[in-house]
């Protein structure tokens, strides 16, 4: 079978060759070097507003809503008709953070000189997915990737897990901010006042950590494990943004959007999870569980399978999964070691590109290939990816986007890409010579058929559209 080593290095491992990238002579060396050169906070991302500003937008939104509710009570019906407009205004500040973050993510991906780690950022952000279809997540979704994922992809899996779980986006998304120990000081006091609707446990985060982030579905944990883990997690909350009575327990100096452990919300006592007893240690209890989960053989296998799939095909070769899982256990979940194992393994290099690029991968690789700006300055990046079928940070479920060919290879989706390629070609097609660009970006995956089809195009623009719609360019 003929290989496409150059193309695989640039697209399966990287994000597509940039128009100004030099040819890669030693693909493995090139990829390994990137692990050391990775920048967790590139300029486009470092320039964004931080957690505090995002939280402030939510606080303002909540205050507006409260004020509006108060006003609405005293309003005539005619006046009430105006409130949706006002509500939209206060929402727009939150939305702005999302839109800015999507643009920064794209700009960093297009510009990066270390596309392999950048791909890994996207991979892990999808593994620890939050979804911006929840109002409380919209503003924080980008910050989750930038502040929880990015700084930890070159460390231990356990630290990445803890950072991803403790970020306000995850705590708000999976309802942890509303989960209270049933026998916590707080819940007991509320019950003591005769309130039947005492605050209680929410298992959402605990279940998804077990099912999606660590062990994997059907790996032997029970409902009791889920409940006990949820209890261990209680006390973990977000200052200033959660709903309910718990907000009154926040320390006076807590900054809105800050992740806090509040002892009075925490379920007291020991918890037994997966047969192991965890004594009461306050915040340390959940962290100890998380570290044990991160080191579990089922977690090693779960992570190994997802990584192997991402770098080979729908059904990853068993040998590669075994090798990655063994490496994970041997190194205590050292992520760079996994990446080096991937680079050195024969499986990711053994076949022609078989994965169908996601809309994100495809668009990023197209933009990297072009020197001229493919879109106008006012192009709404977030809306474009929604139209292409992969809204950024909005997979609709904590499972993230499925990483299989069938997820993205649909007929309407294919037509969408051809139409977008046509539009880009219409904009800049006569400034780019697709005949010269094709051997550069398709490298050893350029087939004579594609080369001929591009050369025979009826205009420079059509040639460029055909390059981006070519069978090779659609895959990785």
């Amino acid at each position, binding site marked *: 079978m003929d290989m496409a080593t150059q193309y695989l290095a640039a697209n399966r491992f990287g994000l597509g060759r940039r128009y100004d990238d030099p040819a890669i002579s030693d693909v493995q060396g090139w990829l390994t070097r990137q692990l050391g050169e990775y920048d967790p906070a590139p300029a486009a991302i470092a320039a964004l507003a931080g957690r505090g500003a995002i939280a402030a937008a939510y606080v303002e939104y909540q205050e507006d809503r409260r004020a509006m509710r108060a006003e609405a009570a005293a309003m005539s019906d005619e006046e009430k008709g105006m409130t949706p407009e006002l509500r939209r205004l206060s929402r727009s500040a939150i939305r702005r953070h999302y839109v800015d973050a999507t643009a920064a993510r794209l700009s960093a991906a297009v510009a990066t000189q270390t596309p392999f780690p950048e791909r890994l950022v996207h991979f892990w952000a999808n593994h620890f997915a939050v979804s911006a279809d929840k109002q409380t997540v919209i503003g924080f979704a980008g910050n989750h990737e930038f502040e929880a994922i990015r700084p930890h992809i070159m460390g231990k899996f356990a630290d990445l897990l803890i950072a991803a779980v403790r970020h306000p986006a995850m705590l708000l998304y999976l309802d942890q901010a509303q989960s209270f120990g049933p026998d916590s000081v707080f819940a007991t006091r509320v019950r003591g006042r005769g309130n039947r609707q005492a605050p209680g446990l929410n298992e959402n985060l605990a279940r998804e950590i077990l099912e999606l982030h660590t062990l994997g579905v059907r790996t032997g944990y029970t409902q009791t494990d889920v409940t006990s883990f949820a209890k261990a997690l209680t006390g973990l909350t977000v200052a200033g943004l959660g709903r309910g009575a718990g907000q009154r327990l926040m320390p006076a100096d807590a900054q809105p959007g800050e992740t806090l452990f509040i002892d009075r919300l925490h379920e007291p006592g020991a918890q037994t999870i997966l047969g192991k007893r965890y004594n009461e240690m306050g915040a340390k209890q959940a962290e100890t569980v998380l570290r044990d989960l991160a080191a579990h053989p089922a977690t090693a296998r779960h992570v190994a399978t997802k990584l192997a799939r991402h770098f080979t095909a729908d059904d990853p070769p068993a040998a590669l999964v075994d090798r990655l899982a063994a490496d994970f256990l041997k190194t205590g979940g050292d992520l760079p070691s996994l990446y080096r194992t991937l680079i050195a393994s024969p499986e990711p290099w053994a076949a022609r590109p078989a994965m169908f690029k996601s809309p994100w991968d495809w668009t990023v690789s197209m933009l990297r290939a072009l020197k001229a700006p493919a879109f106008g300055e006012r192009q709404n990046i977030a809306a474009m990816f929604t139209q292409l079928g992969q809204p950024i940070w909005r997979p609709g479920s904590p499972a993230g986007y499925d990483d299989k060919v069938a997820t993205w290879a649909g007929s*309407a989706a294919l*037509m969408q890409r051809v139409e977008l390629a*046509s*539009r880009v070609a219409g*904009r800049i097609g*006569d400034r780019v010579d697709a*005949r010269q660009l094709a051997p550069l970006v398709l490298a050893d995956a350029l087939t004579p058929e594609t080369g001929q089809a591009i050369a025979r195009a*009826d*205009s420079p623009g059509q040639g460029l559209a*055909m390059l981006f719609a070519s069978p090779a360019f659609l895959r990785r």
Partner: protein
Amino acid sequence: MILSRRSVILSSLGVAAAGAIPNFAYAAATTPKRLVFIIQRGAADGLAIVAPTGDPAFASARRALADETAGGTKLDGMFTLHPALAATGGLYAGRQAHFAHAVATAYRDRSHFDGQNMLEGGGSRPYGRDDGWVGRLLTLLPPAERDALAIAPAVPLALRGTLQVGTYAPSRLPQADSDLIARLSGLYADDPLLHPLWDSAVKTQELAGDIGGNNGRNGADLGKLAASLMLPADGARVMMVETGGWDTHSGQRGRIAAQLRGLDQLVGALQTGLGPVWTDTLVIVATEFGRTVEVNGTGGTDHGTASTAMLLGGGLAQGGMVSADWPGLATAARFDGRDLRPTRSLESVIAGAVAHHYALDPKQVMTTLYPDA
């Protein structure tokens, strides 16, 4: 989601100048002159559009395609207009159409990329200029007549220059044209994943994106849109309309008929839409180069050299005639033994028509539009 081409949405792409976007509320303009440049991308076959049916070598060279023009308007003793151009034939009868035949730019190779660059840029070699002949023409016009607009997602090379130009795209994601779709069908033919996906995508696609589709009505819609953008007092005075799908390597008979039906309806809708302003309008239709004299093995024609250009409008210098220093189609008369030989420069045809239209000094127009000539 496939957006309808009918849903006209103002495009923010390109260097669209806010001031160049017409306001539909205003009444028709008093200053008269309008110019429309319709580019035929893909090398339109001049021998099928204005067929030299009186040339003794025509029938044998064109073989199966020789009767393509049967039933078309007889233009003179030599030339017959393609029957799909019925309305254009009517303009010819009313001295509002002129065909310049055996014309070509200075370009003599056969690459669409390079040829279109020369046609639009007006340079003497491919990629020799980064501005275009229409863009340079604007500098010769009074400020009130400079508003230029392209119905395209971005400013085409022909309109680029020192003055700002608007763009107007019919939809946010324009549909891929039918020619690109056909080519991709070929490219995906042996791909087990893409072939069935694409097949089904194409079946659900209405192919509303090119002038030939929808039995010519797409051309009519485009013409109507162009007229509506040019008619208002503060509307565009200079307009470029792009058409694709002219690269008829195979199955030319049906494809070029559909293309020309679309072009005919585009021109008809322009005339109707502009009403009395049509008298002061010049439409130039041109392509990057022509196609081979001989028909190839797949019922089509390959890249050639000279083609035909159309001048349409109410105030032509020589309406109702075909101008050609006819080289003949015999093998010995052909360029490189295969193509219609160019006997006149397309640049001079364009410059001459523009100079007459705006009553400008022909020499100044020529040196401005084609400074490298």
